[in-house]
């Protein structure tokens, strides 16, 4: 589903690489946790997958799409196949909760009737029923995070990338989010999760990829993690 082959990303000409010859292979329906300290290269890895950045060298293939052969005008089509929960949410500031989630469906051309039916169901999953008409600035950090999650899963993507989705949440809400991720993983979505939360990693008992200084330090199934 996701294949990175000796991928290197260097910002600027003579800097040390943010990622240095990284190779990872993720099977369909897998649940992978990426851990590592701040600045280790986790976010760079995710930005490469969404084609926000281009690798300096190496090969990336996601969902059968070879990024080397991807034309600029097809990048939107690629991004529609991947659901992303951004670390800083990236909600549209001038749109309501409902509109933010609906936007993900509007851009793929879904009809209004379908959108009106789909969005409330997803808002139910993330416990945001009744807040459809709020604007992002009226929400708490945790609520914004859940809007971002709702938006990422509403298209039922084959791949979900979640960058620190529990970062701003208290333990209870953090587990709610993790439960949502596990649930859509059970329905067949490949999940790539980055986190700092040791407890979550240890309880999930999933494959853990540890990145240190741009290298893969370890890649183990059902691993635990210590900071």
């Amino acid at each position: 589903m996701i294949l990175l082959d000796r991928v290197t990303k260097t910002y600027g000409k003579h800097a040390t690489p943010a990622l240095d010859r990284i190779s990872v292979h993720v099977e369909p329906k897998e649940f992978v946790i990426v851990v590592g300290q701040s600045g280790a290269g986790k976010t760079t890895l995710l930005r490469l997958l969404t084609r926000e950045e281009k690798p300096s060298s190496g090969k990336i293939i996601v969902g059968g799409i070879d990024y080397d052969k991807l034309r600029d005008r097809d990048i939107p089509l690629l991004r529609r196949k991947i659901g992303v929960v951004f670390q800083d949410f990236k909600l549209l500031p001038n749109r309501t909760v409902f509109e933010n989630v609906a936007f993900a469906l509007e851009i793929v051309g879904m009809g209004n009737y379908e959108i009106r039916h789909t969005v409330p169901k997803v808002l139910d999953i993330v416990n945001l029923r009744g807040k459809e008409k709020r604007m992002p600035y009226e929400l708490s950090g945790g609520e914004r995070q859940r809007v971002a999650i709702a938006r990422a899963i509403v298209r039922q993507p084959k791949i979900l990338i979640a960058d620190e989705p529990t970062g701003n949440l208290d333990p209870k809400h953090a587990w709610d989010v993790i439960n949502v991720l596990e649930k859509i993983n059970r329905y067949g979505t490949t999940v790539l999760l980055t986190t700092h939360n040791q407890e979550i990693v240890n309880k999930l008992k999933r494959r853990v990829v540890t990145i240190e200084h741009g290298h893969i330090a370890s890649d183990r199934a059902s691993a635990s993690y210590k900071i």
Partner: protein
Amino acid sequence: MNRKMITLSRIIKTGMVNFVRNAWLAIAAMAVMVVTLTIVLFSLITNATFANTIAQITDKIDISVYLKDDITAKDRTKLVENLKGLPNVKAVTYLSKDQVLENYKKQNAGNEALLSAVSSTDNPLPATIQVKPRDLNKIQDIKDYLSKPDNLKLQSDDPSYSGDRKAAIDKITHATNILRQVGIFAVLMFTIISVLIIFNTIQMTIFNRRDELTIMRLLGASTWYIRGPFVVENIIYGIFSAIMSIVLIKILFMLASSALQASSLGLLDINYAATYFNAHLFVLLTIQLGVGILIGAASSIVATRRYLKFKTK
């Protein structure tokens, strides 16, 4: 509805919703557009008014050809017809001795001394052909024609463009030419300045919302799905501003006609300007709408471009 129609209707709807939600930004941007479009409109009207004043002055200028008393009707008719045939001649009027006398009496009514000098039995005034040129700059060909020996024979005196009046005509011609050029230059200048100011304003409003653009890009929205609403929004600015500028000028004219009793400020004939404005309302509105919509659309396309680019390195 198919997908394209859904998308199009969404783009238009989003543009309108954004217009309402960004009301303050919209008002600020439109205020700038209204002011600049009004200046363009004002310079257009002023230019037309100057052109009219110039036309009126040049219309009053004609060349008088004085005929000998003894020429035959046939020679006279031939001369009139030939003059009409010249390319730079707009109109030719023949005045008989009696008509010239009549005009002279009207012009000098009340001046007994001048009136007593002429009478119908002893009329010293020559029959006259008045020639109106199309273009004052090119009266040389009329002069040349009148100076031909055959034609000179028919004339009692030199045509009246020569001497004192020639200098006056030349001065007016020179002045009107400069005025015309200044007018066109002013219209062009104001239009260019307006375009730049409006473009800058729109670029700033889009700069304010660049985060929105990049977010939409990350979620996989196509270029036109992101750009479309901005284009729609700016076209709405353009339409509102064009109408506002017309209304503003209309109000100005209404105030001017009631408050300023004077119908003319030097070369600027306010009455004519108002008439011109009312008569060409539709054309002017179309020009304003065209300029407003075009600048709005073009600026938003250019301004959004940089935020929609993909990384190539």
